[in-house]
């Protein structure tokens, strides 16, 4: 299959990834049963994670590994979890993507990977205080289109 990322884009992304600090793992959940965009998502993520030694990709199946999927609250494919660390020590921050991270979502994904690696959210002091004071769970779904 021909790659998604051309050399100039790869170079740009590599440059961004130079600032990474901690390892980051993308847990991909596909589904053999019904997933129109899984193949291309895997291809894209394989290319992206090859651009830094601090990045790893794990490919899982929603149906065959339902226990793992439910541990990460993933119920749709293609589904992605951006976790901290690698191997047995993955930290789940609650960061998920559903769908092919292409178009504008591609930039968001690259940025997410860097931010998770640096563990720097860049949020304001007020927001951090608010988040620190939370007592109940907050679930956010952000719908967007790849324009």
């Amino acid at each position, binding site marked *: 299959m021909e790659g998604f990322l051309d050399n100039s884009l790869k170079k740009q992304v590599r440059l961004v990834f130079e600032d990474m600090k901690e390892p980051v793992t993308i847990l991909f959940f596909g589904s053999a049963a019904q997933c129109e965009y899984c193949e291309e998502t895997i291809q894209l993520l394989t290319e992206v994670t090859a651009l830094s030694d601090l990045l790893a990709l794990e490919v899982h199946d929603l149906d065959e590994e339902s226990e793992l999927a439910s541990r990460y609250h993933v119920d749709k494919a293609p589904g992605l979890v951006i976790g901290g660390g690698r191997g047995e020590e993955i930290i789940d921050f609650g960061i998920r993507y559903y769908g092919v991270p292409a178009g504008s979502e591609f930039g968001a994904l690259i940025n997410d990977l860097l931010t998770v690696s640096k563990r720097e959210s860049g*949020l*304001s002091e007020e927001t951090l205080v608010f988040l620190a004071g*939370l007592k109940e769970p*907050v679930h956010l779904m952000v*719908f*967007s289109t790849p324009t």
Partner: protein
Amino acid sequence: MVLAHRMALESPLVEAEAIEATEFRELVGRHNVSGVPQTTINHGARDVVGAVPEHYLVAEIEKALKKESGS
């Protein structure tokens, strides 16, 4: 980075899903997505349409939590 993801990174109580709307039509219909981006808080307790500043989203989350606790 998606603002919601920044919040998830900072708090173990926040979980944030970025959803590609054209691939998940059924979900879009269920959550009455009228424009993108739309942020749906706690499965519909509040919906925020548009790319909003940080303090605005915080205020909306506060409203959603208040609504749920009934105060």
